[in-house]
């Protein structure tokens, strides 16, 4: 049995896809979402095998949403679009599966065949919108909160998970791992456990024994690892 989530901002379009999938007895639709924010939550909770993902959606597009998912727990993605030349070109180039609305039964069957045979892992970073995050999704109790990058002070990795601190010092857990955030945001890796928003750093303290640490505007102290120090100094233009 393959579990599926349908994500599209048009209710009638979701309904139509649900109807088209009905004959496929091995597909179990576990839910429908009207936007990417809802979808992130559902993917997080239900962990569907496949997501039918519309591209054009309010605030966060389908492709942007992909960049917010943990690449190691990535469902199979089937993109949906009515018409988007650029996106379709990119899908073709990267051999991503996509369906054009309205969907013909034959084309849908082809997609289902692929899904049944097992889809190789894709690297969606090839899509620029997926590789650059404008905001970080933080999962709370029944809610996904989006923090804009310039509102993030630092990100810390602890044994219990990854935590994002905003400029007011409030901490929220996120599902995205530190190295993904390092890749997809301008946040600077300064320690094995820390990313920092360099725009919010007020000073750098040199400590005895050749170590150093950042102090942010809010007064928070963030350690800098010995290994990364030369690289950070070079990046900041400090000799």
């Amino acid at each position, binding site marked *: 049995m393959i579990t599926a989530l349908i994500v599209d901002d048009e209710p*009638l*379009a979701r309904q*139509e896809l649900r109807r088209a999938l009905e004959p496929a007895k091995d597909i179990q639709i576990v839910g429908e979402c009207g936007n990417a924010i809802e979808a992130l939550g559902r993917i997080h909770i239900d962990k569907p095998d496949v997501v039918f993902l519309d591209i054009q959606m309010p605030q966060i597009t389908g492709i942007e949403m992909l960049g917010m998912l943990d690449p190691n727990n990535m469902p199979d993605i089937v993109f949906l679009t*009515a*018409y988007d030349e650029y996106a379709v070109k990119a899908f073709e180039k990267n051999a991503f599966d996509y369906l054009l609305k309205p969907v013909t039964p034959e084309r849908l069957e082809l997609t289902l065949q692929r899904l049944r045979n097992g889809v190789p892992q894709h690297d969606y970073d090839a899509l620029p919108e997926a590789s650059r995050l404008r905001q970080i999704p933080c999962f709370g109790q029944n809610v996904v909160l989006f923090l804009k990058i310039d509102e993030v002070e630092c990100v810390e990795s602890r044994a219990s998970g990854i935590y994002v601190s905003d400029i007011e010092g409030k901490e929220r857990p996120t599902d995205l791992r530190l190295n993904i955030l390092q890749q997809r945001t301008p946040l600077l890796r300064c320690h094995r456990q820390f990313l920092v928003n360099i725009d919010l750093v007020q000073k750098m303290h040199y400590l005895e024994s050749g170590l150093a640490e950042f102090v942010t505007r809010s007064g928070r102290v963030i350690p800098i690892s010995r290994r990364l120090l030369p690289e950070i100094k070079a990046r900041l233009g400090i000799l």
Partner: protein
Amino acid sequence: MDMHSVSALSVLLLQQMCVYLVVAYVLSRTRLFIPLTRASIRWPHRITCYLIFSAFCIMGTLLGLPVVKGNAIANTPAIGAVLGGLLGGPIVGLAVGITGGIHRYSLGGSFGLAASIDIVMQGLIGGLVHRYLIKHGKTRLLFSPLLAGGLTAITIVIELGIDLTLSRPFSEALYIVSLIALPELIANSAGAAVFVEILLDRRDGIERQSRAFSAKALEIAAHVDGVLREGFDQENSMRVARIIYDQTGVGAVAITDREKILAFIGMGDDHHLPNTPITSPHTLHAINHNEVIFADGYEVPYQCSISPSCKLGSSLVIPLVGENKRVIGTIKLYEPKTKIFSTINRTLGEGIAKLLSSQILDGRYEQQKNLLLQSELKLLHAQVNPHFLFNTLNIIISVTHDDPAKARKLLTDLAVFLRKNLKRPIADVMLSDEIEHIKAYLGIQLARFADRLTVEFDIPEHLLSVHVPAFTLQPLVENAIKHGTSQMIRTGRISIRAHQDEHAIFLEVEDNAGLYNPEPKGDGLGMNIVDRRIKNRYGESSGVTVSCEPDVFTRISVRIPLEAKT
């Protein structure tokens, strides 16, 4: 005193006078004389005046008749001196007098000294009269033949007095004076009068010519005005060629582009056919080198390149120059073998070519501007967003299963929307038409976004019949959804309103997204075109204004002035 020799001398002197005047007449046909036809204070003109009248003064002496063994000369230097002064002023007069005087003195004779003083005196008197007339605003009298003749007569009388005073022996002087008095008086006064008459004639000639020239040029300019602005094509070229042909009276007129003859009118139109390729080497040269080619049939041979029996014998080819000095064609004037190509027509031809070139250029610019606006309009009205279209088809497919009536309604909305979109957007429509258009559009959008979109209309009944440019509201409503409400997670609301004050109608489209971005990444094209079209038509005070409070609302307002009733 011998009456017989006096009358014989008079006749002889008059004969000499004739030679003198013929020279004057011939010279008057040259450009040399142009400065003499105006009382001018400019130095180059005065110098010309000095040189010419000195020459005439000396010629007057040389053409004279020696009397009494060459002691005296019955002659006419007075004309040059008096007129030099009269037309050139005291300084020119004095200079002419001195020049003529020195020359006369060098010829010697018992009258030599007196005669040279005479000439200086005559130049001076001419100059003084000039100054007097100018001072008293009687410039016109400078060119009065009567005055010139009279003044010369007076100076001759004074001259004779001086001769009698200065020449010795007195008896001989008296004899000579009695001999030359009458002939000199007659010849000099008549000569001066005729000389001025010649100048007057020349002046009128120049004026007549330039008047005729200006009139012709103006006539042609007025007639061809704007013709080629409408496009440099065969039909318009034909019209222009006809005008030039009629106005200049040349043998034939042709207009070509770079490859072919666009128009040909006049002699030889049996074989010079429009829409045939250019064969004339002169024309090809003019096009390739951007040069005016004048083949007069003598110095530069001319032979019609099409027919050996062609009656045309000379041609003037002038390039028409467009953008970046690129030759876009030529205009050609022809004269038959039996007629000489007039200078006026040559000059006119070049002037006309300049005029036409600038018109064509203007026309191209205008045309491009119009094309641009038209293509943008076309783009706008044919711009059925494919994303919208396929999404619509998709939901209609979905609806057919559960609610065939709703599916029919959606298909009808789509048909209305497409039909209105395909209509030419040039004309005005009633506001009710525009509302119908957006209602069809919104009917579909409401189905697509279901619970995420609401729409409200507030259009007073009496405004439904006002005329507005087609395609004014629809692009704005489309923008409000595309860049506004479709980007919202919560429910979007779109209000479409109309109201009016005493000067204008206002159409407003407001959404509750407040996402207006002055430099939209996507296409602000629709709104820009709406704005430009309305401003183009109603002026800068009309058009689109945007107000936006981020995350609260974006309001687009179109102001359309109530058109003044004519």
